[in-house]
């Protein structure tokens, strides 16, 4: 069975540009979350979506936005990129909103901002 899939795996952008990252959850999973992992640190929660609605937002600026589609896939958008946005962006999926459900992570999209 396919796990959480993310694309692209690596990308390089210039300051001020915009980026879109994509995620397909595990089949049957309706909840998708996004995390940012800066080198040497633990992942930081950005968003959670369930049934196409935003259900949680972390402490990130409005430059970060996301959406979930009817097939439960998701996109994370980051506008006006800053050097500090360089990180591994992880998508995670879980079966439902219920706490304690296993949260599965994809392998991430490496974003470098130059």
């Amino acid at each position, binding site marked *: 069975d396919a796990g959480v899939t993310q694309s692209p795996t690596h990308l390089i952008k210039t300051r001020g540009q915009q980026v879109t990252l994509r995620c397909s959850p595990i089949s049957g999973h309706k909840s998708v979350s996004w995390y940012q992992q800066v080198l040497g640190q633990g992942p930081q929660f950005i968003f959670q979506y369930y049934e196409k609605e935003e259900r*949680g937002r972390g402490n990130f600026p409005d430059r970060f936005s996301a959406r979930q589609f009817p097939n439960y896939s998701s996109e994370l958008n980051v506008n006006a990129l800053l050097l500090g946005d360089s990180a591994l962006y992880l998508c995670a999926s879980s079966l439902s909103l219920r706490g304690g459900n*296993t949260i599965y992570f994809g*392998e991430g999209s490496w974003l470098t901002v130059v």
Partner: protein
Amino acid sequence: QQQVKQSPQSLIVQKGGIPIINCAYENTAFDYFPWYQQFPGKGPALLIAIRPDVSEKKEGRFTISFNKSAKQFSLHIMDSQPGDSATYFCAAQNAGGTSYGKLTFGQGTILTVHP
């Protein structure tokens, strides 16, 4: 209030040793505590998880010990192997909160197991 503090930052053991990684939290609303293992270039993978109504949980060579009163929990890896060399993250979730999918992670521990 939302932090999870993890120590040590790095750990080196010999094959067969028992590395211990510790985590502490402040938010008493946390009620689900998973541990993730992450290899270079990969996403975190769930290793083992515990709820606060249990003081210990064991799965294979991995054991979580949980001290609710001290708000601390730890991961023990029995008979460690070179293949266990990875970064380990503790995490906490408020399963009854409004951000059900939000995991709060510790800073990570880089484990190296020498042959």
